[in-house]
């Protein structure tokens, strides 16, 4: 749960959208209108926050909060 909260907080800042309006199934592109540059910046912040490297080819599969949270849970040290 803590991971998801952190993820939501980072996404909230990147998208300038309130935390309350971001749910587990929220999609970065469809719901938050993030463009490709927004996505790169956000993934960079995830890497920094969680000390995990997210390979470029992997980021294309991470479309929602859930996707990111699951990836981080599986790959975090």
């Amino acid at each position, binding site marked *: 749960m803590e991971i998801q909260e952190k993820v939501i907080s980072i996404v909230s800042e990147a998208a*300038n959208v309130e935390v309350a309006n971001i749910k587990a199934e929220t999609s970065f592109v469809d719901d938050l209108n993030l463009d490709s*540059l927004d996505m*790169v*910046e956000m993934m*960079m912040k995830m890497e920094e926050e969680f000390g995990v490297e997210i390979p470029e080819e992997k980021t294309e599969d991470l479309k929602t909060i859930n996707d990111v949270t699951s990836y981080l849970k599986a790959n975090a040290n």
Partner: protein
Amino acid sequence: MKLNRVAVTGISALCGLGHSMDEVWANLIEGKSGISSMKDIDPKMWPVQFAGTVNDFSIAEDLLDLKERKRFDLFIHYALHATDEAIKAAGLLDAKYDPYMMGSIMGTGLGGFPVIESTTEIYHAKGPRRVSPFFIPAFIPNMSAGRISMQYNLRGVNYATSSACASASHAIAAAASEIMLGRQDAMVTGGSEAVITGLTMAGFASMKALSKWNDQPTKASRPFDKERNGFVMGEGAGILILENLDKAKARGANILAEVVGYGATADAYHITSPHPEGEGTIPCMQQALKYAGIAKEEIDYINAHGTSTPLGDIAETNAIKKVFGDHAYKLNVSSTKSMHGHLLGAAGGIESVICIKALNEGVIPPTINLDDQDEKCDLNYTANTMVKRDMQYALNNSFGFGGTNSTTIFKKYLR
């Protein structure tokens, strides 16, 4: 080919003297200094510790929201802030121009230098994977014109000019040309600059170009005075809205002035020193007069480049005397850099705006700190106190490193 007349319908200014045209103008005619000591700096890293900084500035939420704000370097913030004032003053948003007939040409000397400096540190400390995807768009010099186009849906010509301290002046000339030739109906032009960092100050200081009067910041910018010892860095923006005069008249716009002439030359002499005989600046002013189709005696006011450097002020004085002869002593000259400092690539923007304001108000802002005039600078520089004068034509000079020169002439609009 018949050229269109070019009207100025909106102006704005942002610098150490204030955040709006009215505030800046009020301080200019009172002869106030907008130069202040830097706060929160490591003095070891700043050879010069004062500048004409824009204080207490933050951009309006409707121009850049919190998300966007961090993604653009400060020169883009300044350009947007000032453009918003000028565009609203001109009533351009209510004008019914084709979006493809409205453009923007904006000057900047160094663009987003501060973000290059800070990102370089991240690159060295954390490696290439930590370089932001917004780094490039944050600093490229044309992003002020680009972001302005997005804000106001200007789909015509869009680019930046970069010619050091003549950048904004060249931008205005290029924008005026677009209208004269009928390629555009309305243009947002001028310039912005925001590069007050330890590294830029160190660079200019190494050139011996900057005044080092750290203990007397408000006295340091003193063009044409015996004690002058270098320029004082400034920052901010000066923006003009230009329109096809016939179309501006037809829509009932409040026309402030006309852009009637400009000249542009190169010294072809030295990377930073002015040509001692004015081989670049004299023909530059002459070209502008010829283009305007007026006699030299018709110029009432020159807003000089006058940066307060020992060589530059003499060279410009000599050039003015060569161009204007006896009339050089009858017109008023002033260097408002004495108050707002040197805005580098935005200098020609803010100083053009000041010329237009002077024509409209019948008031010439002074050269402050002119306590003991250099014998080699023997013109009427409007020392220390503003002067009232009924004027028809004002001329602005902007000269840049690389030996580039630009002169613009504005005419008061007679209704």
